[in-house]
């Protein structure tokens, strides 16, 4: 149960980091973020089952493909929408519709799944633990740490943080906003794609899994404090544990209710989120 929470939390962390990044850089609400997750699951499915590639190669390929799709989408659809919340939301809804149709046409409407990559169960401290869930949490952690190192150390990462703090000042310092926006969108989508690829062997997927996950991502982003990346991580794990525990102890519908109630309560009582500031 605890490990389940960790796994759900790390999936949400990977997923919502991209959402926070895009919101922080471009001030748009990207409802199509869940579709990147969905597309990546299908991409991994395609590479593994149809082309017979190795799972890890497929995962990396899926991240690259989805990242490129996201950059193209950013260039075509989101560029005129920067800074406008509701229009960008509607635009991304349209984008989500289109991605869903693409997935339906390409892969059909049936539920799909991929064979497990890490079979078996190991025993840690007397508790039996499935290797798969452990590995997913581990790989997610590596990816998130890698992303943080990129954000803190590399030049593009610094540019990204500068734009999140103050776009105009960043532009005055010679940061290309357009480049940063594309990069942010691409990396955000690639992280969502990583989540999709990693979770594809565990959960079944179909073309309509995106929006429900996007809403969860919004809960995490609002709980963590909108533009605060550490807050997003914290919130993702809090929500992951709450969901896991409530699902096991009560029922799944109550878990969904908890998530929505948390969103409502945090927005009305502490609008800046857990780690955000005004």
């Amino acid at each position, binding site marked *: 149960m605890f490990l389940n929470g960790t796994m759900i939390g790390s999936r949400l962390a990977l997923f919502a980091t991209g959402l926070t990044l895009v919101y922080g850089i471009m001030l748009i*609400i990207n*409802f199509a973020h869940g579709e990147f997750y969905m597309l990546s699951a299908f991409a991994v499915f395609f590479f593994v089952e149809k082309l017979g590639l190795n799972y890890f190669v497929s995962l990396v390929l899926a991240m690259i493909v989805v990242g490129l799709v996201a950059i193209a989408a950013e260039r075509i*659809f989101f560029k*005129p*929408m920067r800074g406008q*919340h*509701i*229009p960008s*939301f*509607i*635009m991304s*809804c*349209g*984008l*989500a*519709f*289109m991605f*869903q*149709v*693409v997935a*339906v*046409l390409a892969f059909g409407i049936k539920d799909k799944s991929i064979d497990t990559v890490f079979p078996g169960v190991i025993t840690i401290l007397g508790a039996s633990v499935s290797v798969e869930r452990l590995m997913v949490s581990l790989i997610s952690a590596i990816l998130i740490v890698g992303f943080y190192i990129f954000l803190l150390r590399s030049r593009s990462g610094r540019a990204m943080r500068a734009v999140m703090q103050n776009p105009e000042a960043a532009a005055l310092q010679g940061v290309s906003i357009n480049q940063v926006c594309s990069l942010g969108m691409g990396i955000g989508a690639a992280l969502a794609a990583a989540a999709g690829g990693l979770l594809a062997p565990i959960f079944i997927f179909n073309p309509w899994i995106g*929006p429900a996950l996007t*809403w969860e991502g*919004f*809960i995490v982003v*609002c709980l963590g404090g909108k533009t605060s990346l550490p807050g997003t991580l914290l919130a993702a794990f809090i929500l992951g544990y709450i969901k896991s525990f409530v699902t096991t102890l009560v*029922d799944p*519908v*109550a878990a*969904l*209710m908890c998530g*929505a*109630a*948390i*969103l*409502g309560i945090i*927005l*009305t*009582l502490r*609008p800046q989120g857990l780690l955000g500031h005004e």
Partner: protein
Amino acid sequence: MNKNSWIKWVGLAAVVITLFLIPVFIKSPYWMGVFTLMGVYIIVAESFRYIVTTGEYSFAHVPVMGMGGYASALLAMKLGLSFWLALPLAVLATAIISILIYYPCLRTTGTFFFFASFAFGEVMRLCWVRFTNPFGGVGGLRDIPRPDAIDIPGLPTVEFTLLSHTSYYYLILVFMLFSLLVMYLLEGSRLGAIADAIKESKVLASFVGIRVWRYEMIIFVIASAFATLGGSLYAHYMTLLVPNEFYWGLGIYVCVWAVVGGTGHFAGPIVGTIVFGLIRELLRPFPQLVPLIYGLILAATLAFLPQGLISLPERISPWIKKGLAKIKER
């Protein structure tokens, strides 16, 4: 009365008369069903726009509509009330529930109002899924009674059974025109001016002595009442209510209809609902393509017509004038 407004009134009267005459020409029950549902959705989309006149976008609107449906269906089924009594009671009950929903939401503004209203609407929707006893769980409510027949002595009895498509169309048409009229008058009244002021700037509005909170609440409750009306008509028309009908799917659609139609103009949501409804019907043979077409229209509208489809004639007319001038030159 100047010439322009005269033309407008005649046009409006023509549209209303056409709407009343539709059942004379179209006999197919299928198309009558399509138009009937479109009437319900126009009520909902227009009341959604009424919320938008204050500058806030509410995602709780569709769950509130569903609550209206559930309220009147439960009143009719558990207490055996007639539809004509259950409808006003449901509107009243849901108005009170909408106060409970919007009370916390009003602490936030803008995008976060949008998310907060989504959260509270979703909690309410999940209540219908979770509490099987009154709400029927995932399977929802079945066999909701149709409205009782209107039996006025001297006139033929009007029945609303499952086979009487035309009478239900007229019922919804009357309610739709009534709601549109009320909302139109409200928008032209002092309340509409106040909504405008709040939309421009809440702070400035409060400086000139407008109680922003109170007026926003009044507007939200009125809009919710109309959504409830739509939901109740929907429930008794479909005779079946499922919680998933009021998922964010419909919420997004209502938002899309209103925004793509154009929230700046009263007729915007009506145009949006009709255009998207007709697209859906015309593409009935290819259901999987419908969202793609929706997405393309939506993207094109937002990119080229930020004011919505309703601003299309305005945007095109200079081009047409230019074209006409060129032809004259020749």
